[in-house]
C-alpha cells in the first residue's frame, strides 16, 4: 500500500506552487461550520445585515453579506482566498486523486494540470461554507466550476463519514461514560446537486468517480456499483453537434439532454454506489423536473420530500437553464428543502445534531448557485430562500462598455430604446402591454408592417399579444415553444415571403432551437431577452444578407426597437453596459437611439 501511494503523493506535492513552507495549522472549516452552536438563529432574518465590498483576484468585484448573530462578540467575518491546495482542509485521498482527475478531464498538453485562479477563488468560498452566487458561468469555465464543487461536496461527505465511523468505533468500545455523539442529520442525503440535463449529471458523477477511485492500484480501486447501468442511461455516444448553430448552443445541448432524472449516490469505504435508495444516499444528483416528480403536489397521495430534510450543501448549476425549463420546479424544491421529515426513516435519534432537532437546518445549509446570467428570479431565490449563517458572497462586476452587447451588433441600424413607466413589478406586464399597443405597434404599422418580428421572453405575454392580434385581425404568424416543426417551417416561409407581416417569436423557442430567421427587417424586443447574447444574435439578423435577393434597401432601412422599464435593469445592464443602463433608467427622455459602429 505504501509503495503504491508514493508516486501519487509525489504528484500531489508537485502541483503545489512553490510555497516557502507548509502552513502549520489548517483551519478545519468543516467542523467549525457543522459544530457551531448558535443561539440567535430563531430571529435570524431580523438581524442586521452587514455588507462588505470585496474584490477577488479572479472572480472580480462583489460583496459579502452576513448577519451578526452574536451581538456581543465583534465577529467580523472576513473572506480570505487561499492560493495553494494545502491551505484547504481537503481529505488526503482527494488530494491524491486530483491531479489524475485533472488530467482526465482536460486532455491538454500539460502533463500536470493545476487548478487555476478562478477555481481557487471559488474553492475558498465554498470551503469556508459560505453561500455563493456566481452569474458569470459560461461554457468555457463551466467544467472548471464543476470540478470545484464536486471536490467540495465529496470532501464534505467524506469528512462527515469519517466522523461517524470514528464515533461508531468509540461507541463500540463500550465506554461506560458514553458522551453524546451528535454527528448526523435527520436523513442521510446531505448534498443535493441540481443539474438541467442528464449530460451534466453524467459529467458531475464522472468527476465523483474520478476523485474517489485510485486507478493505479488494482487492490485499492473502488468498486463502482451499477456503473454499467449508469453509463447506459446517462452517457451519450452519438455526436449531436450541429455545425450551423452557435457554439454555446452546441456546448449546452451536447449529449443526453433528457431533463427528467434523479440518482442517489452513496459513498462507502470500498465502493461508490450509484442508484442507491435516497434514504441510504449521501449525494443526490437530480434535475428540477426529476425532483418535482417525487416531491409531488399538494393533495397527491404519493409524495416524498423527507429526503430533502437534511441537505447541508445545495448546488444549483446552470441555473439559467432552469429558467428556460420550469422555474416553478426550482421554487417548489426550495419550499420543501430542510423541513422536518414526516417519518423517521430509521434515523438513530441519539446521533442527530441538536440544531437539526431544533429545526435549524436551513441556517446551516450552504447554497451555491452558478448561472450564466444574472436574473431577478435567481437573485430573489438566493436572497430570500437561503439562510446560511456563515453569510453569502455575491459576485457582481459592473459591465464595462467593452463587454456590452452593443459591441457585438455589426448591423449599422438604429436601435431605439423605449422606456415606459411602471410603479410595481406586478403591474409592469400590464403597463408594458398598454405601452406596446398604444405607442410601439402604431409606429410599426406606420413604417410598413411587413417583416416585423416581435421577440417575447414570457409565454404569458406571448399569449396576451397573440390574442390581441387575433381580435384585431392583424396579419401575423407565430413561433412558440409548443409549435410543431412543420408549422414552424410554414411560419418562417410565410414571414419571409411576405405572406404574413408580423411574426411573434418566444424566447424559449429561440433558446431551444436558435433559428436564424430570415427576412427580419424590423425587430421589436417586447422585453429584453433573458440571455443577453440573444440581443446581438437577433439584431444581427437584420443584416441585408438575410433579407433575400429581392431586398433593395440597406442597413439604414432596417431597425430594432426595445421596450424596457426600470425593472429590467439587470438585463439592460448586460446589453448596454452598467453606465449607460443607469443613464437610460434615470434619463428624462424615454427614447434613446444607438447606432452600432462595430466592424465585422
Amino acid at each position, binding site marked *: 500500500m505504501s509503495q503504491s501511494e508514493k508516486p501519487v503523493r509525489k504528484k500531489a506535492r508537485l502541483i503545489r506552487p512553490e510555497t516557502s513552507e507548509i502552513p502549520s495549522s489548517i483551519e478545519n472549516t468543516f467542523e467549525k461550520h457543522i459544530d457551531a452552536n448558535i443561539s440567535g438563529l430563531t430571529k435570524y432574518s431580523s438581524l442586521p445585515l452587514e455588507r462588505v465590498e470585496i474584490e477577488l483576484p479572479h472572480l472580480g468585484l462583489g460583496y459579502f453579506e452576513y448577519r451578526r448573530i452574536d451581538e456581543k462578540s465583534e465577529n467580523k467575518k472576513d473572506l480570505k482566498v487561499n492560493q495553494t491546495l494545502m491551505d484547504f482542509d481537503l481529505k488526503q485521498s482527494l488530494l491524491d486523486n486530483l491531479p489524475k482527475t485533472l488530467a482526465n478531464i482536460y486532455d491538454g498538453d500539460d502533463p500536470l494540470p493545476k487548478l487555476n485562479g478562478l477555481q481557487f477563488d471559488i474553492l475558498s468560498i465554498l470551503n469556508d461554507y459560505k453561500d455563493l452566487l456566481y452569474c458569470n458561468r459560461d461554457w468555457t469555465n463551466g467544467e472548471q466550476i464543476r470540478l470545484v464543487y464536486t471536490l467540495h461536496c465529496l470532501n464534505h461527505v467524506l469528512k462527515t463519514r469519517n466522523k461517524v465511523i470514528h464515533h461508531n468505533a468509540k461507541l463500540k468500545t463500550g465506554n461506560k461514560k458514553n458522551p453524546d455523539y451528535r454527528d448526523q442529520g435527520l436523513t442521510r442525503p446531505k448534498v443535493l446537486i441540481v443539474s438541467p440535463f442528464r449530460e451534466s449529471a453524467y459529467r458531475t458523477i464522472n468527476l465523483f468517480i474520478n476523485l474517489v477511485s485510485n486507478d493505479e492500484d488494482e487492490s485499492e480501486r473502488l468498486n463502482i456499483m451499477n456503473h454499467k447501468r449508469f453509463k447506459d442511461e446517462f452517457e451519450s455516444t452519438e455526436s449531436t453537434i450541429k455545425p450551423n448553430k452557435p457554439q454555446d448552443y452546441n456546448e449546452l445541448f451536447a449529449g443526453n439532454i433528457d431533463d427528467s432524472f434523479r440518482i442517489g449516490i452513496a459513498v462507502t469505504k470500498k465502493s461508490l454506489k450509484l442508484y442507491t435508495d435516497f434514504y441510504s444516499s449521501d449525494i443526490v444528483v437530480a434535475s428540477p423536473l426529476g425532483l418535482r416528480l417525487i416531491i409531488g403536489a399538494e393533495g397527491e397521495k404519493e409524495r416524498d420530500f423527507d429526503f430533502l430534510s437534511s441537505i447541508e450543501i445545495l448546488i444549483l448549476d446552470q441555473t439559467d437553464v432552469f429558467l428556460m425549463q420550469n422555474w416553478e420546479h426550482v421554487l417548489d424544491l426550495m419550499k420543501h428543502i430542510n423541513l422536518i*421529515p414526516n417519518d*423517521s426513516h430509521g434515523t*438513530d435519534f*441519539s446521533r442527530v445534531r441538536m440544531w437539526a432537532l431544533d429545526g435549524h437546518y436551513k441556517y446551516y445549509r450552504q447554497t451555491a448557485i452558478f448561472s450564466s446570467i444574472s436574473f431577478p428570479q435567481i437573485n430573489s431565490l438566493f436572497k430570500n430562500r437561503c439562510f446560511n449563517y456563515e453569510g453569502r458572497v455575491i459576485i457582481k462586476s459592473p459591465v464595462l462598455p467593452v463587454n456590452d452587447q452593443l459591441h457585438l451588433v455589426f448591423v449599422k441600424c438604429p436601435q431605439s430604446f423605449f422606456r415606459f413607466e411602471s410603479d410595481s413589478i406586478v403591474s409592469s406586464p400590464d403597463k408594458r402591454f398598454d405601452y406596446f399597443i398604444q405607442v410601439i405597434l402604431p409606429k410599426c404599422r406606420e413604417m410598413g408592417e411587413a417583416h416585423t418580428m416581435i421577440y417575447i421572453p414570457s409565454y404569458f405575454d406571448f399569449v396576451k399579444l397573440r390574442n390581441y392580434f387575433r381580435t384585431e385581425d392583424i396579419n401575423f404568424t407565430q413561433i412558440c415553444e409548443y409549435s410543431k416543426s412543420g408549422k414552424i417551417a410554414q411560419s418562417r416561409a410565410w414571414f419571409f415571403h411576405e405572406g404574413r407581416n408580423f411574426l411573434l417569436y418566444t424566447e424559449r423557442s429561440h433558446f431551444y432551437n436558435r433559428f436564424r430567421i430570415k427576412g427580419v427587417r424590423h425587430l421589436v424586443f417586447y422585453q429584453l431577452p433573458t440571455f443577453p447574447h440573444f440581443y446581438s444574435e437577433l439584431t444581427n439578423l437584420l443584416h441585408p444578407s438575410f433579407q433575400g435577393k429581392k431586398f433593395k434597401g440597406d442597413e439604414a432601412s432596417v431597425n430594432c426597437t426595445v421596450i424596457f422599464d426600470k425593472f429590467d435593469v439587470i438585463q439592460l445592464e448586460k446589453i448596454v453596459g452598467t453606465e449607460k443602463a443607469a443613464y437610460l433608467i434615470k434619463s428624462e427622455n424615454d427614447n434613446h437611439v444607438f447606432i452600432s459602429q462595430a466592424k465585422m
Partner: protein
Amino acid sequence: MSSSESDYADADDHEELSEEEHQSDVDDDGSGVDHEDGDDNDESKANEGEETTFQQLGVSAVLCEAIEAMKWSKPTKIQIETIPVALEGKDIIGLAETGSGKTGAFAIPILESLLAKPQGLFALILTPTRELAYQINEQFQALGASFGVKCAVIVGGMDMMTQALSLAKKPHIVIATPGRLIDHLENTKGFSLKTLKFLVLDEADKILNMDFEKEVDKLLKVIPRERNTYLFSATMTKKVQKLQRASLKDPVKLEVSSKYQTVDNLLQYYIFIPLKYKEIYLTYILNKFAGNSFIIFCNTCSSTQKIALMLRNLGFTAIPLHGQMGQSKRLGALNKFRAKTRSILLATDVASRGLDIPHVDIVINFDIPNHSKDYIHRVGRTARAGRYGKSITFVTQYDVEHYQRIEFLIGKKLPLFETPEQEVMLLTERVLEAQRIANSEYMESQDKGKKRKYNLDETDDTGEGLMGNKRIKPKFKSKSKLKVKSKFR
C-alpha cells in the same frame, strides 16, 4: 379525619386548608390563598408550631422559590409524608387520592435530585390518561422554570415524529402513557431509557385496570434496576401489589387516607326515579339550577353524545367528552368548558379523575357508576378547593344494588333530592321531542362515522372505548380477577 377530608377536596391546588379556613374562604378561592400567604411567611412559622413548611421538609432554596411562585403555601399531607422519605433516596408506595397534591409529592424530590446531578432522560412518569399527562407536565414546567427543566409529553394521538424529535433532545423528564412510550421504544431508533434514575407510576391502579399490564411489564424490563421508584395508587388492588413486588425495592409505604371519604362542603343527594323518566328529571334539574356549571357523568360514549344533542335541542350549552374523541377534540372540549363558554360537560369516566376545573358547581351521576370507587372520583370534581358543591345521583329501579354499595363505601346515607313530580312531568312533551330529534341526529352522525370506523378503533390510551363491554358486573368481579395470570411474579 377532618384534615384528610380537606386533603381530598383541595385537589391539585395543593393547599391544605384547615377546617376554619374553609369557613372563611369559601366564596373566593383566590383571596383565601393570598390570605394564607401572608400568614405563612418563613418568619411567621413560629406562630403555628404544628405547621410544616417546605423548607423544613428539606427542600432546597431554589425549589422553595418556585413553589412560592406557584402559590403553594404549605405542603399537603402526602407531601409532608413523602418528601423527607424520598429525599433519603428510598422507594415509595403512596396510597393517596387524586388531588391530594401527589404530583408535588413526587415532582419535588425528583427535581431536587435532578438539580444535584443534571442529566437527560432522568425521570419517567407513567400516567393512565393523556389529560393527566398534560397536567403533570404543567406542574413540572412551573416548578422547574427557574432552572430550565425540559419535559416531553409522550401520549397517543399526537404525531410520532414530533415526539421522536423531542425525545432526541434528551428531556430531563418524560411524562408518558404506557402504550405510546412502548411504541417509541420499539420504533424510534436511538431512544432508550438506560439512563433513567426515577420511575413514577401514577394512578397505578388505573394504569393496570386499563390493560396496560403488558406495556408496564415491557417497560420494567428496559429500565435500569438502579433507580428510584415511586408508585402511587388510589387503592391497593392485587394487581398493584404484584406490580409493587416487581418494581420496588423495600419501599416505604405511606398512606394518607385509607378510608373513602368525601368532603363536607359537598352536598350529596340521590334521586329515585323510573328509568324512562331519567331525561325528564335531568332537564328539570338543569332548569332549576340554571346558571351553574355541571358535569354530567354517563357510562357510555354514545349516551354522552345523545344527551348532549338532546340538551342542545333544549337550548342548553352542552358539550360531550369521551374516549372515542380524538386528542385535540378532547382538549378542545375541556377548554371550552374551562372557559365557561359551555356550561354543561357530558363525560364518561375519562373525566372522573385528576381533572381540575375549579368552577364546577354540580355533578350529576346520570348513570350510576359501575365501580363504587368511581363515585368518589366523580363527585370529587366539584366542591374543590374549599368551595361548596352539590352532587345528585340518579338511581333507577335497576340500580338499587349499586347504590347501596356506594352508600356502604362512603359510610353515609344520602338525603333524597325532593322533586315535585307534577311540575317535572310538565316537561315530558318537550323533552321527548328533543330526544327524538337527538336520536335521529345521532344516527346520522353514526352513519357518517362508519366510513372512518377504524379511527374509532385506534389504540386509545384511555381505554374508554372498551369500558362499556369490558366492565363486568360486580357479581362476577371476583371471578374475573381469578382469571388474570400473575405477571409480576
